[in-house]
């Protein structure tokens, strides 16, 4: 919790400093990435070293030796004009790759620059450029290429440049969407406030973020360009004077019956290059996406890494305030939760939590981010994200050990006996179904009642949770209701199947304070009315004071202090709890009025022109 001290392990720091070389290393470890890179490397090498690998001129025709089989002078034989196949193949690599590179570069230049400008400036620029892009996409590519050939004559380079223009929309669309997403990031606003000009913002902040998808797209498009270029030459639309894979195909196809092996070499070259490029792009995308995932998980599990496991520490337990005859509903004992890391290590986020919730009791689980409070709640519901699992301990709920229940049996418990109120009400309602159907359907399934009965109960519930016009909200889609209303709907859903326990994960954090007060009132009222137990996860001491009978304070995956709410608020004993209480600002002294010494200070500091 000492956030100003840099408690970082040196390992991720050095590993992340060189993001580029890091990615390259990961690509080498990826089997597909490595294989495609080797193939591409060999192809490029062949193109560069073509004059050294073969002394024969690829254009040298020899009518005395046409369609020769493989020999010492011609390792792959000769074609219909007596030209050396190997020499043509190697030199063809140069032209094919250069052609594809030209086409893709033209496409990328036009598309990326257009996308950047359109995405950043929007308005006028955007309408003009998207109109142009649509027009280009509407043009039939082959017809345009034929027309270009008719007007400009047969030229490999011209054809590929025209083809590049036709492919530009692929880059434009990608860049445009990426830029629109980044444009509203706060760091772009911050740069504008810092007085940075538009061009530097685009070059520095926006391009760096959209770089990766553009590289991937480049590899994909280049694979396509190789194939298209070969196709054009194969159809005889290219320049017959340069040796390309497509021209070789054209020639071989005409002599298919006499010498079928001729078609193998150029086909192989085209297929190999296109496939290698596509696989390379795929591997690159996989690696980039995977880095995002591990990063997320690292943040999720960060707390356990920052603080050492304190499993030996005993929690401070406050004495009961009076005789409590209510039975235990939920008893969690020595719960340990961990996440399997890609390198096989288990990252522990909950280090042995024990807590119990009596029937009809409201238990608050309070802690700062990364304390493991939400992880504890999720593991009671057995809804841990991918890679997370209960490592040890038991979760005894009304006589059943939830930690060791089969998924099928757990399904029967969730929603019916234990329900859940999430933090983000909006993202927990499916936008494509009406509020009513999302409320009625689970009831129909869980309680086995008819659709009409379910609707009737759903409307009653909506009225009970304080929704002014239940009929209208029932028929509304989630985007048509406010955040506070959505949370009321989710609360209605949580109590709809008459559960014994409701787990509420920061149920008011995303709401305004006046709405929070209403939601707290609603929760308190429902709890009294239904006698349901609530386990509420929160970071807000006010919420705990308002609602909870009992509190457990969590830090680094452990409970450090637990007991009746009143006695903990009156007398916090653990140093960590005391620190938290000291950080509370409510009832703190106000700043007071601006005194004149401060004015003098500014006056002496002077005004910089």
């Amino acid at each position: 919790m000492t956030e100003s001290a840099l408690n970082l392990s040196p390992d991720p720091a050095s590993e992340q400093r060189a993001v580029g070389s890091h990615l390259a290393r990961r690509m080498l470890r990826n089997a597909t990435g490595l294989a495609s890179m080797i193939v591409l490397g060999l192809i490029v090498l062949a193109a560069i070293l073509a004059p050294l690998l073969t002394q024969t001129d690829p254009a040298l025709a020899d009518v005395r030796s046409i369609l020769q089989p493989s020999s010492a002078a011609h390792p792959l034989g000769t074609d219909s004009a007596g030209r050396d196949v190997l020499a043509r193949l190697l030199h063809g690599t140069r032209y094919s790759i250069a052609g594809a590179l030209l086409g893709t570069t033209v496409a990328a230049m036009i598309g990326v620059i257009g996308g950047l400008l359109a995405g950043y400036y929007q308005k006028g620029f955007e309408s003009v450029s998207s109109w142009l892009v649509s027009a280009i996409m509407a043009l039939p590519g082959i017809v345009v290429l034929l027309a270009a050939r008719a007007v400009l004559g047969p030229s490999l380079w011209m054809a590929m440049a025209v083809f590049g223009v036709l492919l530009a929309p692929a880059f434009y669309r990608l860049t445009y969407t990426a830029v629109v997403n980044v444009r509203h990031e706060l760091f772009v606003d911050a740069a504008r406030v810092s007085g940075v000009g538009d061009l530097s913002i685009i070059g520095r902040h926006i391009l760096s973020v959209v770089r990766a998808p553009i590289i991937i797209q480049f590899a994909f498009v280049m694979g396509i360009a190789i194939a298209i270029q070969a196709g054009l030459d194969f159809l005889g639309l290219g320049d017959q004077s340069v040796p390309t894979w497509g021209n070789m195909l054209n020639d071989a196809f005409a002599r298919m019956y006499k010498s079928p092996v001729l078609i193998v070499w150029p086909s192989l070259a085209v297929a190999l290059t296109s496939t290698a490029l596509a696989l390379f792009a795929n591997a690159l995308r996989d690696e980039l996406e995977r880095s995002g995932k591990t990063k997320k998980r690292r943040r999720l599990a960060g707390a356990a890494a920052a603080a050492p496991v304190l499993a030996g520490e005993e929690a401070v337990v406050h004495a009961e305030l009076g005789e409590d005859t209510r039975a235990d509903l939920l008893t969690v004992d020595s719960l340990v939760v961990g996440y399997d890391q890609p390198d096989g290590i288990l990252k522990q986020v909950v280090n042995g939590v024990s807590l119990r919730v009596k029937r009809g009791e409201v238990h608050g689980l309070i802690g700062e981010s990364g304390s493991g409070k939400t992880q504890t709640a999720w593991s009671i519901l057995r809804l841990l994200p991918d890679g997370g699992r209960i490592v040890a301990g038991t979760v005894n709920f009304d006589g059943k050990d939830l930690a060791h229940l089969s998924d099928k049996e757990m399904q029967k418990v969730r929603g019916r006996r234990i329900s859940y109120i999430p933090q983000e009400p909006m993202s927990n309602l499916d936008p494509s179904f009406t509020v009513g159907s999302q409320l009625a359907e689970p009831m129909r399934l869980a309680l086995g009642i008819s659709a009409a009965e379910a609707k009737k109960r759903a409307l009653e519930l909506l009225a009970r949770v304080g929704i002014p016009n239940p009929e209208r909200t029932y028929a509304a889609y989630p985007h048509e209701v406010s955040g506070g209303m959505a949370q009321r709907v989710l609360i209605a859903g949580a109590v709809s199947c008459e559960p014994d326990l409701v787990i509420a994960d920061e149920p008011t954090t995303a709401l305004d304070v006046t709405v929070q007060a209403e939601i707290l009132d609603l929760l308190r009222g429902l709890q009294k009315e239904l006698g349901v137990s609530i386990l509420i996860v929160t970071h807000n001491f006010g919420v705990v004071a308002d609602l909870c009978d009992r509190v457990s304070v969590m830090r680094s995956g452990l409970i450090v202090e637990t007991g009746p709410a009143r006695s903990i608020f009156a007398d916090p004993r653990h140093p960590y709890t005391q620190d938290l209480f000291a950080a509370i600002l409510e009832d703190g002294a106000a700043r007071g009025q601006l005194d004149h010494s401060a004015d003098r200070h500014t006056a002496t500091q002077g005004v910089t022109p």
Partner: protein
Amino acid sequence: MTESLLVIDNLEVEYPVKGFRRKPFRALKGVSLDIKPGECVGLVGESGSGKTTLGRAVLGLAPVTGGSITFKGAEIGHLKRRARRALSEEIQVVFQDPYSSLNPSLTIEQSLTEPLRVTKVSSPDASRRVRMLLDQVGLPSNAADRLPREFSGGQRQRIAIARALALSPQLIVCDEPVSALDLSTQARVLDLFKDIQEATGVAYLFVSHDLAVVRHLSHRVAVMYHGEIVEYGEGDKVTSDPEHPYTQRLLLAAPVPDPIRQEQRRADRSRLIEAQKEIDLQASVH
């Protein structure tokens, strides 16, 4: 009485709404406010009240459609981009979300030198300034070569503060700078804001939804509701004994961290709401 640093007079901001001939959305409906040198003015309100829009208007990031913003006697509400850039040395910003306010692919030093490069500070000078700034916000100087993702939320917010301080501005607009932080971190970052203000005499426009946070830091507090300022006055008075019915509701809605006093506050709140309903009812009858 010292002269005001920033005067906002009858400010209106309207956002265009998509669709043919749709009426624009009025985010600010005539807001007036002033900030003195070295003063912290708190701006409280709930989501949609226009408090963030007011901050963005001062920064030149929101479309001003009426009224004026005067900074040191000069009108800045309708400046063109180029003229606006010159103001970057005087008005700076700290945003709410410490995760998106720093470019993830730039090192801390690159982010911090950005405003310095604009004003043509030489690079050794800029480097020295970066270490000084990091020291000022309580971060070690070796933080300069790292990427934002290596820092926690509180540390990132310190970096964002350092960036705002880089050009020694006279006014910093703070848009919910602590609401994404943990309780203990929040208290420390607020203290940092206070220390920096006392050391440099910079003025803050401090936007927050949390009355307690605003009370802790602000000399004067303005309360916004539906695009208007409904109450504006001395910080202590507005946050403990407000006059406007909305501020009263806002104050009583925030739960106190004490079960016994919270029970009391709950009762007060329902009484207040009943009483206000009564008044509304009478008003609608007449």
